[in-house]
């Protein structure tokens, strides 16, 4: 592999020889696939809503370049820097989320976006990676056994974050944040009784959502019995996979992108299925699985609890989003708007994920004493 010399002890030189290059390649491939798919799917959507054909493509590229830069830059950090970055980021993002509730733009009944210097950003996207790292820190502190109430602090933080998210309202994001936090807590050594209690609490929470929130109830009903209501988007997505077959109809030959309102975001996987076929989709799934499981396997050798929990949390967030998005596209899960990490159109999501995966790359780098020898 071409790169800096082994003896190069500069920042970049050390980075190159310690970073997990396999993950780097997989993430690069996902970003490339994303650029390609946004180019395939978004012109149809843009034309339909009266924008210039390449409106979304251009905007995605505008975000893509800084996103790659941010990911590399963050991955240069040490674990300590990652923790500091996340802590500051967490504080700032909480503040921005409060600001969003006060002065944010309301779109489709939700207040999630904030206009900053000409760009519209969604602060809640950034809370996910920052909170995962901060929560990992809290769990690790508790484990050190020096009396710091890490569990309690992280639970309180979790409560604050979830409250802010529900106020927007953004239930999908709340579920992801809660699931990531729960998984981290689980790995940090959550006692068995707690797991059971939490499990029941989760089920109770879902039941409550089903009973109290009509749109949640309707989505689950439609998932269980498709004929009970409108399942147009998902049905269209399914037919896209069917018509795509093994090798797809060919780039640009797809039809669902002309029908699905969210072809470039939530249903970009269906566009991939129709135009590029099963093989391309399986490659995409394999890339996501590889990134998550490769990261996990690196963490099995990690001796630092914070590093392990933080990296695992970030990877769980990445994996859950990918699974939920693909699951909804394939009608394995009830309809829930969630973007496909690194692939779907969306600036804030892309940037936040770049920060998150940058931190994963930083945490999975080989360090003396980390257990990652080689």
């Amino acid at each position: 592999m071409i790169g800096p010399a082994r003896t190069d002890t500069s920042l970049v030189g050390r980075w190159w020889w310690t970073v997990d290059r396999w993950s780097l390649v997989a993430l690069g491939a996902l970003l490339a696939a994303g650029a390609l798919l946004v180019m395939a799917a978004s012109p149809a959507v843009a034309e339909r809503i009266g924008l210039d054909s390449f409106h979304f493509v251009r905007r995605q590229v505008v975000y893509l370049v800084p996103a790659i830069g941010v990911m590399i830059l963050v991955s240069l950090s040490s674990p300590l820097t990652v923790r500091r970055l996340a802590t500051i980021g967490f504080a700032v993002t909480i503040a921005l989320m409060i600001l969003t509730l006060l002065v944010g733009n309301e779109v489709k009944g939700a207040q999630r976006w904030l206009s900053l210097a000409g760009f519209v950003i969604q602060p809640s996207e950034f809370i996910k990676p920052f909170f995962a790292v901060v929560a990992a820190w809290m769990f690790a502190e508790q484990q050190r056994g020096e009396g710091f109430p890490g569990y309690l602090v992280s639970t309180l933080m979790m409560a604050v974050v979830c409250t802010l998210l529900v106020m927007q309202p953004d239930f999908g994001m709340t579920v992801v944040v809660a699931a990531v936090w729960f998984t981290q807590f689980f790995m940090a050594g959550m006692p068995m009784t707690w797991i059971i209690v939490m499990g029941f609490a989760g089920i109770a929470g879902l039941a409550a959502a089903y009973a109290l929130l009509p749109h949640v109830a309707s989505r689950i009903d439609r998932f269980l019995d498709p004929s009970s209501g409108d399942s147009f988007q998902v049905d269209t997505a399914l037919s896209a996979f069917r018509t795509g077959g093994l090798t797809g109809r060919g780039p640009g030959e797809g039809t669902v992108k002309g029908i699905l309102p969210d072809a470039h975001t939530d249903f970009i996987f269906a566009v991939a299925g129709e135009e590029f076929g099963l093989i391309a989709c399986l490659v995409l799934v394999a890339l996501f699985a590889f990134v998550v499981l490769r990261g996990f396997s690196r963490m099995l050798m990690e001796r630092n609890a914070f590093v392990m929990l933080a990296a695992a949390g970030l990877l769980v967030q990445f994996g859950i989003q990918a699974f939920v998005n693909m699951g909804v596209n394939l009608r394995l899960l009830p309809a829930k708007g969630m973007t496909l990490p690194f692939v779907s159109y969306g600036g804030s999501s892309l940037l936040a994920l770049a920060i998150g995966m940058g931190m994963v790359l930083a945490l999975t780098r080989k360090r003396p004493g980390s257990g990652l020898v080689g």
Partner: protein
Amino acid sequence: MSVFRRKPRAIAPVAETKLQWSDDAEQILENGRNRLVVVGAVFALAFTLVGARLIDLAVLQGHDANQTALNDEQRPSAERADILDRNGVVLATNLITASLFAEPRRVLDAADAARKIVLALPELNEQEVEKKLSGGRAFIWLKRHLTPKQQHDVNALGVPGVGFRDDRKRVYPHGNLVAHVLGYTGIDNEGQAGIELQYDEQLSTVTQKASAATNGDPLRLSVDVRVQFALQQELSRAVEEFSALGAAGIVLDAVTGEVLAMVSLPDFDPNQARTASSNAMFNRASLGVYEMGSTFKAFTTAMALDAGTVKIGGGYDATKPLRVARFTIRDDHPKKRWLSVPEIFIYSSNIGAAKMAVDVGAERQKEFLGRLGLLQRAALELPEVGRPISPSRWGEISTMTVAFGHGIAVSPVQLTSAMAAMVNGGIRIDPTLMAKQPMDTPQGTRVIKTRTSSIMKRLMRLNVEEGTGSKAKAAGYLVGGKTGTAEKAVAGSYQRKALLSSFIGAFPMNDPRYVVLAVIDEPKGTKKSFGYAGGGWTAAPVFGRVVSRIGPLMGVAPVDEESKSVRNAMFIRVKAGG
């Protein structure tokens, strides 16, 4: 002691705690790794599930995405075999199109959707579309067979609840040309008329797997589009020139019985059959039955000669009209003298023909015409085949009128087929629209002696040279034939001005291969025809021009009509002893 014992104790807890903490840390880390493996396994399972579901959709359900579990109403048009002419020219084929359907239950806003769809497809009615969309039905077609551009436009609207299915549209590349033979299909590609209806099952068996060896093979007709075109064009010219109501024409292979061309005018475009009038759809060549008039005298003459009731040298007196009961039979071109058999034929004498038939008798006439296939429906492969009308009481009057083609109505295809037997050596062969293999010459049944047929050829040639059919001449081709001018019976009485003018003949007359019929329905006389509208003035020229055009196509070598050998071959004595 207590001091001594206390000291190590004071140190020990620290050391122990440290050791314990380290063990604890190791324990916690180990526990965390185990749980990491659990979470990893869950993810591996989840991604495997996604992969399996992808394979399930794309491969297992992928093949017939368009056709899965559709009921009859929802199924797009089936595959259908092509129809070719005898030389392999495509007469009917299918185009893949897209058809727009809606699932009204999934339409969110019927009014809005209807408004948008009508923007893309302005030919649809907005109210009707809205009504369809708000019907609450599971499935409804909105428009069949969209062009690619229309499909793109509708797709770009992004209206939920509507979609496309691959569909097949029957296309007739030659438009009107072969319309009445081919017929047409309905919106679901089911045969509605003509060959499309007659062979509906065979043509549509393409998708039914357990079908015969002919599955999907194109159907080859006997028709030759080049001949069809010549006939259609010449008949159209005549219809225009003589302001006629319509026309019909047939070109028949006298040896094989194959119909090379069959034209009925006015015609229609089978691609837009629904807009055609019933008059245009009516097949005058096979479904229409008409009193054909004088062309029947060829049958009467052959019958009498074959029966031996009169010799070719014999004749009958045509000095004055024939009165039977309250009828009077006159000649159109009265010679007011005794006429020989050839003269009766070329001057088209009704009196002579009637007398000839009376000598043969009603029973033998009826039996003879039956053997020629003139008393039952033609065995042609079309649903539109007319049933002939013959006298219910076949008395002497009927015998006389039938002798010159009145009181009996047959279809043009029957007439042509019967005439083929007069000139091909005396064998009657069923007409067919299916291409035959070159070696496949049908047996047929003998109806007249070879010698009688030989005389008929000479008489028909003579008629073109010296009789009523002189306008049928085609330079270089030895043609022969008989004119027919029948007054149409309208509401029970014959109309002097409403004529059905025809000419039927064959070529080359020394060894006839092709029989050509031209029928003009109610031609009006013109200045050029000196006001005449009979068969000799209207239909005979069509015959001549058609022969001039198709002779070279069919590979018939031209001859010098005036040469001695030809004259000898066609010689016949016109006047007894003369």
